[in-house]
């Protein structure tokens, strides 16, 4: 068995999220250094505020200002901050019940060490220098032993309300394709296409995924297929793909390699796009250093009879 293949894989996406009216007021408030809560029917003030009552599911919309000072209700010392977290020096995660609120807000608490943190300690918001209307407008909490500040009693109406946030997310993986696909990729490096045969129904899968989807059994017998094959069906691509240096229009096709019971796909070249047809016989064209065929071109053989590939459509 060849060496297990591995490659880094980064999944990254900037999620754009629209806000409900309560969230919009709360996050706009943070931009303006005002902390808002929302009143429930039973008179509790929820901070951070939510659109619906967590108990009764009633619509909530009565916004009230609370203080930027509060009390730690629980905490945890994080001596090794991770990517994306509010501080890059050791800090405490804390749930903080702000003065005037009945529920607690999660954020970081900047403190010199775990001995300086306890449940019940008084803290206040440290505002971020640059604020955009996001939870990160609170840079963190910091210890505070002063008086509870007066609040103006803001009603939650601001100029230029924030209506959405962009939340970038990135996760890093090390991808390994497993046994069957590793073997397939390994064969390609010597310009051979190797599928696997199902021990039960005898079908040859290319590329192999390690199991027969009809029989639900492991495939392991390796079978070299091709290099020639038959176009079973195709489409004409008229949209240029970003970062892909291929002139449009071009043909993208399903190709059943000789000996395979499953068609793989590839680009067809060496023939005008409007002359490609079902049944066309093709062969792979490799480029120097390529890890898979660059495209397939006509072999010049007569077209395959429909009956020979109709089960592979």
């Amino acid at each position, binding site marked *: 068995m060849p060496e297990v293949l591995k490659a880094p894989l980064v999944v990254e996406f900037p999620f754009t999220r629209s806000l409900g009216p309560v969230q919009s007021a709360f996050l706009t408030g943070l931009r303006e250094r005002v902390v808002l809560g929302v009143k429930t029917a039973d008179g509790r003030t929820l901070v951070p505020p939510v659109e619906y009552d967590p108990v009764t599911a009633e619509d909530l919309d009565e916004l009230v200002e609370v203080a930027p000072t509060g009390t730690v209700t629980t905490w*945890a010392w994080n001596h090794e901050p991770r990517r994306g977290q509010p501080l890059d020096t050791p800090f405490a995660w804390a749930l903080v019940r702000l003065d005037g609120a009945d529920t*607690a*807000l999660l954020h970081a608490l900047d403190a010199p060490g775990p001995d300086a943190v306890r449940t019940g300690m008084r803290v206040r918001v440290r505002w971020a220098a640059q604020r955009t209307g996001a939870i990160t407008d609170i840079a963190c909490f910091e210890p505070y032993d002063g008086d509870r500040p007066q609040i103006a009693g803001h009603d939650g109406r601001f100029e230029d309300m924030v209506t959405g946030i962009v939340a970038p997310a990135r996760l890093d*993986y090390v991808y390994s394709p497993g046994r069957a696909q590793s073997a397939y990729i390994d064969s390609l490096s010597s310009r051979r296409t190797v599928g696997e045969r199902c021990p039960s129904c005898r079908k040859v899968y290319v590329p192999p995924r*390690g199991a027969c989807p009809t029989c*639900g059994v492991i495939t392991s017998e390796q079978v070299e297929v091709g290099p020639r094959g038959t176009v079973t069906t195709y489409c004409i691509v008229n949209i240029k793909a970003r970062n892909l240096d291929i002139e449009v229009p071009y043909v993208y096709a399903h190709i059943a390699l000789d000996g395979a019971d499953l068609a793989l796909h590839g680009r067809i070249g060496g023939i005008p796009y409007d002359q490609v047809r079902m049944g066309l016989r093709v062969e792979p064209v490799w480029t120097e250093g390529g890890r898979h065929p660059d495209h397939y071109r006509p072999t010049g053989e007569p077209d395959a009879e429909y009956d020979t590939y109709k089960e592979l459509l």
Partner: protein
Amino acid sequence: MPPIRDVAVVAFAQSDHLRTTDELSEVEMLIPVLHAVLEQTGLKTSDIGFTCSGSSDYLAGRAFSFTMALDGVGAWPPISESHVEMDGAWALYEAWTKLLTGDADTALVYGYGKSSPGSVRDVLTRQLDPYYVAPLWPDSVALAALQAQALIDAGETDEPALAGVASRSRASAATNSHAQLRGSVDQGDYLVRPLRVGDCPPVGDGAAAVILAAGERARELCERPAWIRGIDHRIEAHGLGVRDLTDSPSTRLAAERAGAFERPVDTAELHAPFTSQEVVLRKALRLGEEVRVNPSGGALAANPIMAAGLIRIGEAAARVHRGESDRALAHATSGPCLQQNLVAVLEGDPR
């Protein structure tokens, strides 16, 4: 209200749970488990009336990974099949309801997860409130640590007691050949204080599967079926600061609805990935000292995400099958700090 049809767990299988399984794709990891569970009953994939799975694309970073896993059940030509982006325990819940409708008499349920390709502490931040919480990237250990500190402040536990949960769990796992952490395991340093390495579950890859069958079919397939006397799942408010982290009202309610409090259980398999969460669950489920808790070692011994909850049901059922339990409780959890909880009560026929 008793279920309208008797449904039982008739077979259970699981993989060895390992830190990494680089050499296997998800379906390659899963197939031996599917074959093992089918073999126990003599069923073929084509005999199964309904198939339901639980997994998450975020773990391995592969979109639609569950469709690849379906190769392992012989899903072509199309079978009656469903998937939940949750632990396999919730797939089992869906399969149970399917069997209750009478649409199927047998169901194959599986859950699997490969945590090794990514960083699971960071991956799990993506399940959090995307507006107020996820942008701060609080990892799963940090959130569990907040819960642990709340319990310590409330006088419900302390660090030595948590270490006791850890060592008892890994000692129990000594007889569980599938477990990832067994025997004597050092508590180690703080990961996020007050939780030490030993208070946290191992990160690893694994899979599990069970077969459900209804009525007489269950008796044909298994000598002593583990009848699902009740099963229910409940969720708490998503705001962590809204909840009392020292309690689990959702677990208690699910247990009540599953009939767990009607008679004592002799065994409980709890899905408590962190030591402190066992403290919360024991209280919510009113488990006394006479109940065997996590004889398998629980999630502290092996925590293949998306399978660990299903494994609790499977382990409890297997004890009933073997005659080691007459009435067992199985619990599964999902989300931060025991946010969502499922409770099932399993019984064997009187001996």
